């Protein structure tokens, strides 16, 4: 009889942790291949299409970086929340709220102000919008013990519907010929692009700065220390006299605020107006959860994992066109990757031994 025994593993090295991630990704690719086979597509061809679509051409790389911007921003913010074991599933809504605040600011003050004032202003507005939407579940959790997974998830829908209401109702633009959506932002509020691409460099730089600053915050500051203690053991946090409400409010304001930045980038850099929720964010808030996880909750690594997942999004678009696969394919790929990454964590923290016994 074969028996499986698990024991805790204590000697977790960086190399082992890295290799576990790689193996998890490979294992996920095997399962994804099976799914492709079922769909009647040559998996090797499909997977190579994904990566050649995203990293194999100049156009692909440009698109990948464009999509990496929101993923890095949101992912970095999520690492902070997840460190405190605050399961923020609401980045999607926080991002949209950021976009709403930014659009309002841009439309209201944009005409009158020069670029160097209005651009920082819309970013600030986006941060405030996302942050406010982020602290609601924090208050609900600490004051009324309402599970944050439920509240953040539900606030996504509330925000998306609120946005819909705005763009078909009071904010509907005259230039949209009856289609839902606001007017275009004034030129001064529109972010510059790297020529020949859709990369709004201001947001890209902001994303990288945020990732760096956040890693300093988590590992070097008092606030980061308190966040980690609360996440590791809330009872110890209580014992240590950490103010849970304050800590949760700050971390969710930051986590939501960064998602808000991402919303600003999408509106002011790509679309130039507030349209359907699904067009502003193609699920970035959810994909970023995987980004944060693959980065091992280290904000600095979200730069890499963000680019990786942006590649899968772009490549997924490519195979949709070239292989005629449904749009949901990419989500299947992402979901499979996340499940395997989480399972990989289990194998990282536990040692599995097989035993043979005669009986």
């Amino acid at each position, binding site marked *: 009889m074969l*028996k499986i025994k698990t024991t805790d593993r*204590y*000697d977790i090295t960086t190399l082992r942790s890295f290799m576990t991630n790689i193996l998890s990704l490979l294992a996920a690719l095997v399962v994804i291949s099976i799914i492709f086979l079922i769909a009647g597509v040559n998996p090797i061809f499909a997977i190579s299409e994904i990566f050649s679509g995203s990293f194999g051409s100049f156009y692909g790389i440009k698109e990948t970086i464009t999509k990496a911007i929101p993923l890095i921003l949101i992912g970095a913010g999520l690492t902070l929340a997840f460190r405190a074991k605050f399961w923020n599933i609401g980045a999607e809504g926080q991002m949209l709220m950021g976009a709403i605040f930014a659009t309002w600011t841009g439309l209201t003050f944009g005409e009158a102000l020069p670029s160097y004032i209005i651009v920082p202003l819309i970013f600030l507005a986006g941060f405030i919008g996302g942050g406010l939407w982020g602290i609601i579940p924090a208050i609900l959790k600490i004051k009324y013990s309402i599970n944050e997974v439920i509240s953040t998830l539900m606030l996504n829908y509330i925000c998306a519907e609120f946005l819909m209401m705005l763009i078909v109702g009071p904010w509907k633009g005259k230039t949209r010929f009856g289609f839902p959506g606001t007017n275009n932002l004034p030129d001064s509020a529109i972010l510059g692009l790297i020529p020949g691409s859709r990369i709004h460099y201001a947001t890209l730089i902001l994303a990288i700065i945020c990732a760096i600053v956040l890693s300093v915050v988590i590992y*070097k*500051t*008092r*606030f980061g*220390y*308190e966040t*980690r*203690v609360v996440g*590791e*053991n809330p*009872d*110890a*946090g*209580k*014992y*240590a*006299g*950490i*103010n849970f409400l304050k800590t949760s409010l700050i971390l969710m304001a930051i986590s939501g605020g960064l998602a808000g930045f991402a919303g600003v980038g999408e509106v002011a850099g790509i679309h130039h107006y507030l349209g359907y929720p699904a067009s502003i964010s193609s699920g970035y808030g959810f994909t970023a959860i995987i980004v944060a996880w693959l980065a091992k909750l280290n904000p600095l690594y979200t730069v890499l994992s963000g680019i990786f997942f942006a590649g899968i999004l772009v490549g997924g678009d490519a195979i949709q066109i070239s292989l005629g696969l449904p749009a949901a394919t990419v989500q299947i790929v992402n979901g499979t990757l996340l499940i395997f990454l989480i399972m990989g964590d289990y194998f990282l923290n536990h040692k599995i031994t097989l*035993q043979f*016994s005669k*009986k």
Partner: protein
Amino acid sequence: MKAISKSFHGIHANQDINLFVESGEILGLLGENGAGKTTLMNILYGLYQPDSGQIKINDRTIRINNPVESINHGIGMVHQHFMLVQNHSVIENIALGYKDTPFFFPKIKIKDKVEQFSKQFDFHIDITKKIWQLSAGEQQRVEIIKALLNGADLLILDEPTSVLTPLEIKELISILREMKAKGHMIIFISHKLDEIMDICDRVLVLQKGRIVGNADTKDTDKKSLARMMVGRDVVFTTTREKLTKGKKNLSVENINVIGDKGLLAVKNISFELFKNEIFGIAGVSGNGQRELAEAITGIRPIFSGKVKMNGKDITNKSPRHIYDKGVSHVPEERIRFGIAPGLFLYDNAILKQHHLKKFSQRYFLKYNQIKNHTKTIINKFKVSTHSINNQIRNLSGGNIQKLILGREISEQPQLLVASHPTYGLDVGATEFLRKHLLELRKQGSAVLLFSEDLEEIFELCDRVAVIFDGELMAILDSDDQRFSDIGLMMAGSIRIDSMGKKEC
């Protein structure tokens, strides 16, 4: 058991251990923390597999792969923490662990058997009661019945007395003697020397995974056992020099605190604490000590009453505010409250102090100072670890405890609230810690010491209060005549009111 070895991560937990028990014998297993007692017993109980060595029963070599097989071989174990379902009745719990329990109507079949056993060994248990209604001693008896019912010839008891009142310990001892007379074998794990001397026929001493002593209890004495256990002489009586008590430090006025179950856990307790004083609160665990300690240190809200520190009101202030007023706290549930397991040693070494100027600026932590501070604690309190860049969950319980103690004592608190500070520590570490507590006292601090170890209370405290069911049964000076009644007070059978009268 023959030549048993087991190692974890290259550390030998057990090395070449030979152990035998004869029927009708009580074998004591003595050793410091991490000496390998529990590992050895877990091997016998089938929870671990030995790396090498053999286990024989009646000269037949056997292999024990899991607890079920171990039970079939007639081995029963009563763990330190009981494995009972709290909301089920006694009989249901017994049926749950019994191998021949029928699928339908399990209780009926077992009832007779249980009653027969209870009579035989003089257990007094109402089998229809729910587990949570029972005292620790009664729960332990349920565990023993469970093991006996499964035909255990060999019963392993892991630190069985740690949760019992003195009276209950006496009852347990008489049960064990009865079992011995009926030919059962018992392995009794403890680090309390008195009990070992009292109960056991023979004692094995473990040190760092090896057997270092094997003696009949009638041929040896406490002192030599202690020496074997630690590997050197242990001074038993720490001398407490006379100090005149200083100014009033802490005063607790008529506080009531609600416990986890929503009932009053601390009932109208008042006492005062002075500088240069160690004030003991004796009592069996679960009589409101934890709630009282948590209320004073701000973790648990106070329902009514007042707590003052140096005359300033600290009732229901935040834990940090209270810490800043000079109150340190060694919590009872150290793993639950005292550490963040996944963080490094140096992160944990400043758990309550990270906001102090020494370790932190307004935003940034001063990691250099923090690491130095950690090294100081580790050296001073002999925490064994290969590095301070080690996650604290990799440390043994005793070492974690030393780090917490070091952390709480190192800042020279004005008041140290210490809950069972030596619980689970070995003799050497206990001695060291007690010296430190006396040192704190000498330097003008006050110590509020919660303990169920009467030896410790007698040794350290200037005054003692006895807590039972959330109430103080008495407050006595250490030279009080009635000190000998503490055991009875802990069991709630005597109470001395402020006029000095006894009530029963």
